[in-house]
């Protein structure tokens, strides 16, 4: 059998039940999880790379006839595994609220304006060195009904496929200095402070484009260690 991914790495994740995030109370499993050996079923995974994206998917500010309102930003970073090795050709799906904190989704009833020039959905694929970059608008905070006067910190949703079923992750990117982070039960559900800090992007003057857009850096670490995988893709 191939070497398995370290299960201990999953300690970075939040628990399923985080009672302050009220929706977890009736949706979190109550019975013990069954620990699974890593078989071919877990160590393989769907491969969706460059053919999944088309031109313009990586620029959420250019998907309509006009320019969206808000603060234009460039988010970039590198996707690596736990050993620091790059994860190339990995699809990242991106979605977010607009600058006013309103989602295009039909069920979002927040009393804030939609922007006819902003949908808030994008896709990007990492290059051979695991790097990615997309351009968007800084999302606004928005209220939710978890508790009295609850507001989500500004965030961008990211969905990643790594090389296997076990590297699949959906997460959220936050912004530095956001005072709502200290009050957000979703962010605070992550017990480990170092793991939480993974989700806070960093302002980056190097990727800031003069006269155009602020840069934020967001590096992503997927599961997987040296000696982990699995099979060479061409060995049979």
């Amino acid at each position, binding site marked *: 059998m191939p070497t398995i*991914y370290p299960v*201990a*790495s999953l300690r*970075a*994740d*939040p628990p*399923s039940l985080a009672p302050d*995030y009220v929706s*977890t*109370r*009736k*949706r*979190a*499993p*109550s*019975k013990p*999880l*069954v*620990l*699974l*050996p890593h*078989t*071919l*079923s*877990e160590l*393989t995974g*769907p*491969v969706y790379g460059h*053919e999944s994206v*088309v031109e313009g998917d990586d620029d959420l500010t250019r998907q309509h006839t006009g320019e969206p309102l808000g603060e234009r930003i460039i988010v970039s970073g590198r996707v*690596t*595994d*736990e*050993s*620091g090795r790059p994860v190339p050709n990995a699809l990242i*799906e*991106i*979605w977010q609220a607009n600058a006013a904190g309103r989602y*295009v*989704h039909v*069920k*979002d009833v927040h009393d804030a304006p939609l922007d006819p020039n902003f*949908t808030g*959905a*994008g896709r990007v694929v990492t290059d051979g060195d695991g790097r990615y970059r997309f351009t968007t608008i800084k999302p606004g905070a928005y209220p939710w009904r978890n508790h009295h006067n609850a507001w989500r910190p500004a965030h961008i*949703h990211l*969905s990643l496929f790594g090389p296997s079923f*076990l590297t*699949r*992750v*959906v*997460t*959220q990117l936050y912004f530095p200095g956001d005072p709502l982070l200290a009050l957000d039960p979703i962010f605070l*559900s*992550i017990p480990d402070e*170092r793991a*939480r800090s*993974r*989700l806070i992007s960093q302002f980056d003057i190097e990727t800031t484009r003069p006269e155009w857009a602020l840069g934020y850096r967001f590096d992503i670490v997927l599961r997987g260690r040296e000696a982990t995988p699995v099979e060479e*893709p061409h060995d049979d």
Partner: protein
Amino acid sequence: MTDGPDGGEVITPSQTVGPFFAYCLTPSAYKYRQVFSSDLTAHGAEGRRIHIEGRVLDGDGELVPDAIIEIWQADAAGAYARADQGANAAFRGFGRAECDGEGRFAFTTVKPGRVPGPGGASQAPHINVGVFARGLLKRLFTRIYFADEANEADPILALVPEGRRPTLMAEPSSAGSTHYTFDIRLQGDAETVFFEA
């Protein structure tokens, strides 16, 4: 940040998919190109076509209308799609479906073959399942087995308490039918078995 287990890097932790993912992840109702489908046979696939329908229910038995289900499976011969086949593989083995307003999801696919398991054992036909939703801070991971297959010697089912194994079985609507039902119960007495891996 190198303080993960065994000196590795701390992984990026999971966060909930939230309630508003559809216009990116399952955007057929929005004007955004769809990459993933709930019909895994759309590009042609060898094998026996099957339909799997189910519901997602919470700890009160209420239907969950805002979940998203992903599946990953071997083809009818028991082979998983590989990176070097890329988009040329007729059967890519991955599907995605959102629940409708009544908590129902559906996939069209082929019955997977047996695949290698631990220690040279073979695993009964199964489909890997990931569940995401508002209120789920991380993906829930389960498997669909088939009640009409020979599951007795499956090495993974053997790890599951016998009384809970039926929660992993897709049931054919009648003997020999290609329509299966598989409900996902997130919490409670009849809770679906979820795995950690």
